[in-house]
């Protein structure tokens, strides 16, 4: 096979598994071909299709940043057939990877500006890749603030990294939806905390990602604070099969989330047909 | 399903047995404990009650090439759950009468009632059903392509 077959996955091995929460786990994988692993290049925000042969394929964002190349990291929430199977894998198991796919966060345009991350639950994954990328290029960016919410204190991912993030120069605001015993941080849904915190929109870019309902209210809260559409970026999620703009199901009007997305600015979103 | 004579006995016969946990599975156990001689063709799937049987399980087994399907549960009125086998009885009888209409040999499917103490009867049931299936030969399955087929005109 000399020509490139976009449906053919690269074989990869699971080298490490981190149980993040009761229903989210992180897989760290390495492509089996060391040459390909070395040559693998991607941008923050791009996704990969993970295959468990016999179960199917599913899309996950590569949440390790391009600046750290020891492995590719994917975080998976248990939902559906493939994700369910990914949750049963052990270190050493073989999976297929088709990556990188899709577009990425326009981090060049964000240089020199303050950054606000707004995330909820598993949706921290796409933010993590950009956050770490920025922390690894810290001098290029201004203030970096992260508002991260989850249902309960046990639903946060990457808790073991929070200290590193802070040390690297990010301020973290954590919140849970409801009061919880011994919870030292904020309480309330993300959009509410966002409104209370009111980060100044001047020279700032907001990147938000979360469940559809959170996005809806977070966008409203951001606009309330004076953020312009061009200042807000989000990622979209759709059911995908091919991931390469052919199979047809992830379209919003003439845009395909798999190749034209998953990253969209709010300005792009308002120009698209309202079918989320 | 037509049995081709040359295909007969070419491979091992496989019979799927759906056995109720409370009666027939116990019956099969009793037969084993008593060391009654039994044919080895049966692959047993334990089910909680014959009421759990979806006729589609039987159809799927036959389509996928099982040579025979045996369903066995508690005697009517003896169901562990009181009424499960009353439901099952109707469904399986409808299926049994329906199979030949679609071209399946209905002898490949049988349902019986055997209690946990009836080891001897279980031996007879299995032996008899196994002999029936051996007489019919392996299930040739569906034809994957049809070149010519009989026409039916209804009006």
């Amino acid at each position, binding site marked *: 096979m000399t020509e490139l077959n976009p449906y053919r996955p690269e074989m990869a091995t699971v080298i490490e598994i981190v149980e993040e929460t009761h229903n989210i786990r992180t897989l760290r994988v390495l492509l089996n071909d060391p040459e390909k692993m070395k040559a693998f290049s991607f941008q923050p925000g791009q996704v990969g299709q993970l295959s468990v042969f016999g179960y199917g394929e599913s899309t996950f964002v590569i949440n390790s940043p391009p600046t750290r190349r020891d492995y590719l990291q994917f975080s998976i929430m248990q939902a559906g057939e493939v994700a369910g199977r990914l949750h049963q894998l052990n270190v050493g198991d073989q999976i297929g990877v088709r990556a990188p796919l899709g577009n990425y966060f326009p981090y060049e345009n964000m240089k020199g500006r303050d950054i606000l991350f707004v995330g909820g639950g598993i949706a921290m994954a796409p933010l993590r890749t950009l956050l770490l990328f920025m922390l690894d290029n810290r001098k290029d960016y201004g203030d970096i603030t992260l508002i991260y919410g989850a249902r309960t204190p046990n639903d946060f991912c990457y808790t073991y990294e929070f200290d590193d993030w802070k040390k690297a120069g990010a301020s973290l605001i954590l919140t849970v939806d409801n009061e919880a015993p011994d919870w030292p941080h904020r309480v309330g849904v993300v959009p509410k905390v966002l409104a209370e915190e009111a980060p100044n929109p001047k020279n700032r870019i907001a990147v938000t990602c979360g469940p559809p309902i959170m996005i809806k209210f977070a966008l409203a809260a951001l606009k309330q604070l004076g953020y312009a559409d061009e200042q807000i970026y989000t990622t979209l999620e759709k059911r995908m099969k091919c991931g390469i703009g052919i199979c047809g199901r992830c379209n919003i009007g003439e845009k395909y989330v798999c190749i034209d997305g998953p990253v969209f600015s709010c300005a792009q979103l308002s120009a698209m047909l309202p079918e989320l | 399903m037509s049995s081709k004579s040359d295909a007969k006995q070419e491979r091992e016969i496989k019979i799927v047995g759906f056995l109720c946990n409370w009666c027939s599975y116990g019956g099969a156990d009793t037969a084993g404990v008593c060391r009654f001689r039994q044919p080895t063709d049966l692959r047993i799937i334990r089910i909680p009650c014959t009421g759990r049987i979806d006729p589609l399980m039987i159809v799927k087994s036959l389509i996928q090439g099982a040579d025979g399907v045996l369903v066995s549960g508690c005697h009517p009125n003896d169901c562990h759950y009181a009424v499960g086998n009353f439901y099952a009885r109707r469904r399986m009888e409808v299926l049994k009468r329906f199979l030949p209409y679609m*071209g399946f040999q209905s002898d490949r499917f049988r349902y019986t009632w055997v209690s946990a103490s009836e080891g001897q009867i279980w031996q007879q049931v299995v032996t008899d059903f196994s002999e029936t299936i051996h007489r019919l030969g392996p299930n040739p399955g569906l034809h994957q392509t049809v070149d010519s087929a009989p026409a039916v005109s209804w009006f």
Partner: protein
Amino acid sequence: MDDKTNALREHVKGIFSNLELVLGWEPGYDPLHTRPFYVRTESDIDRLTANCLSFQNLTRYLAKSMNAVDPAADGRKIGVCVKGCDSRSLVALIQEKFVSRDRVYVIGLPCRGTLDARRIRALVPDPARIRSVNAEGDELVVETDRGISRFALDRAIARKCLQCRYPNPVIHDVLIGDPVTPRLKIDAENPSVAAVEALSLEDRLLFWENQLDRCIRCFACRNACPLCVCQNHCIMETRMPKWITQYRNMNEKFMFHMIHALHLAGRCTECGECERVCPVGIPVALIKEKINAIIYEMLDYESGIDPEAVPPLLTFSPKETGI
């Protein structure tokens, strides 16, 4: 069905203020086709038609496209036009509590048979441009670009209609037109089923394989069926549980039709919609007709006659013997 368009419109006009909407038919894209139609406003009533082309069974919309169980706040009902066969589906839906009797206003239309577009295309010399289709007595008159053809109505009506035993609605709030004499007696043997049974076992398998091999798994038969009520949870489409793979081979096609038929055992009312909508012309209803015959013989039950009855495979009788 004879043309009852005017009588139907008149009746609906008289009662429309008490109704939320009326399910009826309107002309389709050409004179051989009809489209189900929701009469939502007074002005829609003049689009209604009711004739030998009113083939769709509208009760499927009651079960699958709206809530026909809970009463409306203003007490208005949903009007639904039913032929004899459709009324049986309605009864079955009432039995299974997908429709409540008080919620619907049933407009019964005695029916002498609906046309089968495929048979007509085979009968007229120039099927491409049909201008009009009309039943005149026992004759069907088809006008095409090349002229007028006439032939016996029986040559052009659907298979289910030729063996119709319930041409008159079994329940109705109003009957439009006079009752019709059934073609077959209630306990008559199903002639199509008998024709299949006349084949040998081997031939029957070949016959069904040949028919089902054409299946393209479009699910039209399933979706048109008023009693296939699982909708988006159908086991044909789920992978958990996985009854069916994506292979398009004989095993899967056969299995699909067995699923469809067995899930309707004791429930199918022989409205023939599955067969009519099949784009590849498989006699889908013929499978279910046999199951109905078995149940009639075994349990003396017919689906869709008595709204109070329980479908026989959803109940049992400890006393029954012989099975």
